[in-house]
C-alpha cells in the first residue's frame, strides 16, 4: 500500500530541471528566425516569377546555401519544440502522448534531413 501522497514524494526534490533547456531553445530559435524568415520571404517574393534556372542559380550562391540550411535547421527546431509543448498541454494519456512525441520526432528529423539534402543536391550538383 502506498502511504505517502504524491505530493509528499516529490516535495523537496526540486524541479525536474528539464524545462529550462526547452524554454531557451524556443526563445533562441525565435530570435534567429526573425532575420532568417524576413530574408526568405523577401527572396521568395523576388523569385516568384523566376524560371527554374534562376532559382537554381540563387540556391547555388554559397551564402544562400548556408542561409537556407540554417533556416531549415532553426525552423524545424523551433517548430518541433513548439509542437511538443502543444502536445504536452492537450494530450493527457501518458502512452498516447509518448507515442505521439516519438512519431513527431521521427517525422521532423526525416523532413529536416530531406530538405537539407535537397538544398545540398542543388548546391553541389553539376
Amino acid at each position, binding site marked *: 500500500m502506498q502511504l505517502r*501522497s*504524491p505530493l509528499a514524494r516529490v516535495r523537496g526534490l526540486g524541479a525536474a530541471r528539464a524545462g529550462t533547456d526547452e524554454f531557451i531553445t524556443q*526563445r533562441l530559435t*525565435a*530570435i534567429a*528566425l*526573425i532575420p532568417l*524568415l*524576413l530574408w526568405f*520571404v523577401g527572396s521568395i*517574393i*523576388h523569385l*516568384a*516569377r523566376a524560371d*527554374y534556372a534562376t*532559382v*537554381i542559380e540563387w*540556391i547555388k550562391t554559397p551564402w544562400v546555401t548556408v542561409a*537556407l540550411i540554417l533556416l531549415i535547421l532553426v*525552423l*524545424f527546431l523551433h*517548430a518541433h519544440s*513548439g*509542437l511538443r509543448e*502543444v502536445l504536452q498541454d492537450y494530450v493527457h494519456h501518458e502512452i498516447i502522448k509518448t507515442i505521439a512525441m516519438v512519431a513527431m520526432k521521427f517525422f521532423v528529423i526525416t*523532413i529536416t534531413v*530531406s*530538405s537539407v*539534402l*535537397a*538544398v545540398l*543536391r*542543388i548546391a553541389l*550538383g553539376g
Partner: protein
Amino acid sequence: MATQQHKRPLSPHLQIYRPQLTSFMSITHRATGVFLSLGTLVLVYWLMAAATGPVAYQQAQTLLSSGIGLLLLFAWSFSLFYHLCNGIRHLFWDAGCGFEIKTVYFTGYLVLATTLLFTALAWALAFTVHGGV
C-alpha cells in the same frame, strides 16, 4: 487524480469569459504556430521539387500559383507575420517588459496593425514588382 478525496474548486470554464483581445491573441499565437508548422511541408516540397528537376519544379510552381495554392500561401503569409510580430511581443514579455494592462493592449493592436500592413505589403510587392505571382 484517482486518490483525490475532496471536491476542490476548479478554475472557471473558458466559455464563461467575455471574449477579450488578450486571450484571443494568445490562442491565435498557438494556432498560427501549429498552422505554420504544417505549412513548412510546402517549403520541403518546393525544395525537393527544385532538387528533382525542371519538370517537378514547374509542377510545384503551377500547384502553388493555382487558386487553392495562392489561398494557402496567403493564409500562411498572414499567419507568419502575425506569429512573427506577436512572437516579438512574447520575447519582450519574457524579458519582463510590457506587462501593464495599457501596454498589453497597445502592443496587441500594434501587432494586429503590423500584421495587416506586412501582409498587404508582401502581396502588393509580389503582384507589382514582377507583374503577378
